[in-house]
């Protein structure tokens, strides 16, 4: 599903964010990217989401060579992804329902289809009763779950999460991780950048450990 081949990223400032990173994540796999802050976790996710392009090397996502994706095609490529952000990135002037519906509106689904899928996604994250609320009235954990519902509502084959539990207490974090595990079980590839080592230990999943931009260890689950 995701294949990095000798991928490097040097920012215009001269900073080497990633150096010769190679790995392969299979469909339906749940994997963590860890490492100290500045190790390159965010950059790695950005390369997959085409927010950045590698300076050298190759990135394949879902069989697609990202260097061949033209600027104009990027939006259509991103519709294959579900992205979850640490700061949720919700639209605060719209209801929970409208927030979750956004990816479906963008790709032009019918009204009925949108209603059905949005409610299914909200049900999945346990927020069906809050669909008419504004995000600002929800707790941090609930906001994050709205973000997750929005990321999965269009049923993407690949889910990316950047520090999804960064601001949450351990119990809520555990719940969120459980959700990710469920998505992986139904065949969604999930890649999570996180430095919450305790949590990752408990999950016993594959870990890509970055150190100063290099892939230090690729730990397979026991």
């Amino acid at each position: 599903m995701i294949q990095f081949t000798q991928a490097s990223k040097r920012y215009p400032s001269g900073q080497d964010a990633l150096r010769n990173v190679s790995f392969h994540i299979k469909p339906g796999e749940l994997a963590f990217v860890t490492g100290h802050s500045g190790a390159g976790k965010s950059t790695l996710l950005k390369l997959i989401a085409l927010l950045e392009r590698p300076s050298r090397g190759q990135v394949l996502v879902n069989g697609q060579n990202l260097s061949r994706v033209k600027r104009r095609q990027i939006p259509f490529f991103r519709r294959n992804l579900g992205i979850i952000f640490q700061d949720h990135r919700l639209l605060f002037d719209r209801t929970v329902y409208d927030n979750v519906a956004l990816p479906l509106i963008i790709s032009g689904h019918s009204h009925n289809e949108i209603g059905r899928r949005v409610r299914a996604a909200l049900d999945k994250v346990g927020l069906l009763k809050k669909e008419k609320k504004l995000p600002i009235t929800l707790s941090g954990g609930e906001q994050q779950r709205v973000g997750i519902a929005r990321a999965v509502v269009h049923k993407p084959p690949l889910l990316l999460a950047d520090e999804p539990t960064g601001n949450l207490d351990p119990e809520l974090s555990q719940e969120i991780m459980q959700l990710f595990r469920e998505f992986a079980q139904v065949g969604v590839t999930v890649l999570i950048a996180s430095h919450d080592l305790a949590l990752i230990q408990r999950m016993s999943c594959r870990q890509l450990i970055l150190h100063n931009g290099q892939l230090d260890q690729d730990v397979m689950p026991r």
Partner: protein
Amino acid sequence: MRKRKPQPAPARRSQREGASIARTGINGLLGRYFTHHLQTLISTLGQLLRSPFSLFMTTAVIGIALALPTGLHVVLTKAQYLSGELEGTAQISLFLKNAVNEQQAQGLAQKLRQMPEISQVRFISRQQALAEFKQNSGFAEAMQALDDNPLPHLLVVQPVLAQGNSERIQTLVQQLGQHIEVDVAQLDMDWIERLYSILDFLQRGAWLLAMILAMAVLLIVGNTIRLAIENRRDEIIIIKLIGGTNGFIRRPFLYTGFWYGLFGALIAFVIISTTLLLLSAPLEQLSLLYNKSLVLTVLDLETTFYLLLVGVLLGLVGSWLAVGRHLKDIEPV
């Protein structure tokens, strides 16, 4: 507006999937596409109406900018029409040479009456002219001091001409001046000529003004849209992150520009109509003087149509420029 790309693909798929979802064929997709446009149109209107004061401020400025050249255009069109009517009253005075006697003058008048371009020739003898002059000028006593009648015989020629043919009148004047009996041929239309050049000048001025103010409208709309883009920066980034095309992001801003232009044009319409209404009373008096109907209280349909069209186009172009310029700067990182 560019169509979004992925539409043909789901259409093909749904056809393959069979009759149960056949209604989401290309028609359904097109319908959905237009539904989405309609929804965006309505929702941008709703968004604008939620802050009516700022909507009014912006559209009032646009309205004033549109009303000025449009109002000028309306007045000038009317004035041109009026001057065309006045052209019908043009007369050519033929002052005959002193040596020409009354009989020769009558002969010439007769000859001229045969010409198709001339509708009427009136002969005024020097005696008549003198009497008239004495009566009207108040110089009667001074005239008595003269031994001779200094005035020549005069032929007043009324040309047959449709309006707007000052050139043909000029040639006719020249032609008449070439008759051997004629001393001076004079067109009593100099003031209309002058009016024409003033109108021409004003017309050009109106166009220039219109162009400058059109630029102003573009800038106003552009700046307003720029601020709107700035305010929704986060939203734009989020939409880009989850796969919204530039067209999708551009659409609400373009429709916002559309509404600004439309409302601006409507305000311009109200301004012009009010002004015309206020001017209608003095104009009516003027029209009594000229026996012409000058009353215009409402903007005519054609001008209104063009006013709305230009308003909407300026709104769209202004927002298009702003969106094209500023959306590029907003990229998720």
